């Protein structure tokens, strides 16, 4: 089956998200940074960035599948 480039982008994005959410050295490093960035702690920015990325990846995946006619019977 021929897969569009969007399929691979979405799935790689899912994997990157899982890695960013789960890879311990990443959040240890973030937690060590004690300065506030624009009034927010680094650990908060880390959680929000990963959360936003996960959200956008699902929206992107649904968008391309709809455009590609994946849901037409």
């Amino acid at each position, binding site marked *: 089956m021929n897969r569009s480039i969007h399929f691979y982008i979405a799935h790689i994005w899912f994997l990157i998200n899982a890695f960013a959410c789960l890879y311990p050295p990443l959040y240890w490093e973030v*937690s060590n940074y004690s300065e506030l960035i624009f009034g927010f702690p680094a650990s908060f920015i880390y959680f929000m960035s990963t959360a936003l990325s*996960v959200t956008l990846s699902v929206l992107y995946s649904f968008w391309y599948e709809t455009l590609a006619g994946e849901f037409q*019977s």
Partner: protein
Amino acid sequence: MMITFGIMFLFFAGLIVILQKIKVDDKSFTNYAVGDRSFGARYQAMSFLNTWYPGAMFTAFGGMAAASGIISFYVLSYSLLTVVLMYMMAKPVWMWGKAFDLKTQPDLFSLRYNSKHIRTIAAIIGIISGIPWLILGMQALGEMFRYISLGSMSFSQAVIFGVIVIAIRQIWTVRIGMRGVVISDFYQGIVAYILGTAMLIGLIVWLVMSKGITFASLDAAKFVIPGPGSQEGPLFLFSLILTGALGGWCWPYIFVRLFTSNGVHSLKKSAALAIPLSLVFCTALLIFGMLAGNLPSVGENVNDVWFIASQEAGGLVLLGLAGAVLLAASMGHIDGNIQATGSQIANDLVGNYFNLDTRQLIYISKIGMLGLTLLSSWLSCMELPALFSLAVLAYQGIIQLAVPQFLGIFWKRGNKYGAILSMSVGFIVAVSLELLYHGTLPWAYGLTSGAIALGLNVVIYVLAAYLIPQDASEKKRVNDLFEMVSKAKGSAPSHKGQVNIISAPKH
């Protein structure tokens, strides 16, 4: 008290009006158990959220954010990752569900592994693990009624009152089945997560503008994620997010949401609708909790942070609304749990060994729901000191279903021997470790008992898959199942002929 209880009464009356308008339709067990697979994306999204986020979000996780700070954001990470899993599972699970008339999670196990007994094992693990959470949900309602009665009810009176309210609500769950659960989830979801989010945002603005509480005013210790050298262990967050994301879909009442949709499109669209709502709601709740934890009035009572801040910001009216929001969230979770358990008792336990017609299946399901409601109501009114430990233990146990579930959906090679052995050993190991170490394993670098058992579970499953190869007919059967999904484009199975070719285990 008239104001707070009056607001909650209005919410409850609105719910009863909606439930009364739903037509009771007992024409098939599929209708009773999964609402005839008839729900569109908006109902699906709200139903998922209303089952996923219980009322305890406002008390336990709000309290955790207030007391412990940023670590509470793990619930946001795993709640969003679980929607990714939902998105990925949507097509195979829905298509198999439609083609083989699957109604419960153990039905899927039985189909994938061609085994009758795996259905019983999965159902027993699911039902037993769900009971402590049901009792906790009912007791949380008691805690809420105690608070909004403004001290005029004792804790035990409030618990009994909460149990009576939730038991009355179950009359409609038992009568109508899944259709009633999903439609009421929509109403409850709007109150809990739309009104609730609006209140949370308003309270954050109030905390910042009126109270001058910002992130800068919080203790720096609240921004620390446990790492090497921490008391929790360096892998603590990893463990929480991994087991949370995988474990969510192991709960029968969450998994059954995949069967209530009217197609793959609706299911995936519901994920696209639910994920931004989940992001905004959960973020608002956790930020609120962190900031409100600095209110002097909260002090040690962190689990009451939602009520304390609401009352302080908006008086009795906002306190009443806070109660209605928590009640709406709690009801969705409790209804879903009771409905799914009733279906499992009829479909996967009794129906697995006796040939039952539609009327008998629905009757047993109703009796099961009624029995569960009475049992959990009775237990909720008792002093159960080890209840929370039991609930944690149940969670570590039930996530062991994840390995045969996810690998079974995405990998052809797994077999029933591996599936039964891996989840049974995983369950026993997780429960034993939990009983032995009471939640903290000193040698595990922060990994929970469930995460360690999951590792062992995967090894057993994969080893069995290679050491005990599927025979030719089983290989063909599983291949046909996977081909059915990979060849189909669209929301419904496009080659229905295969439904007859592949033999699903019948009960």
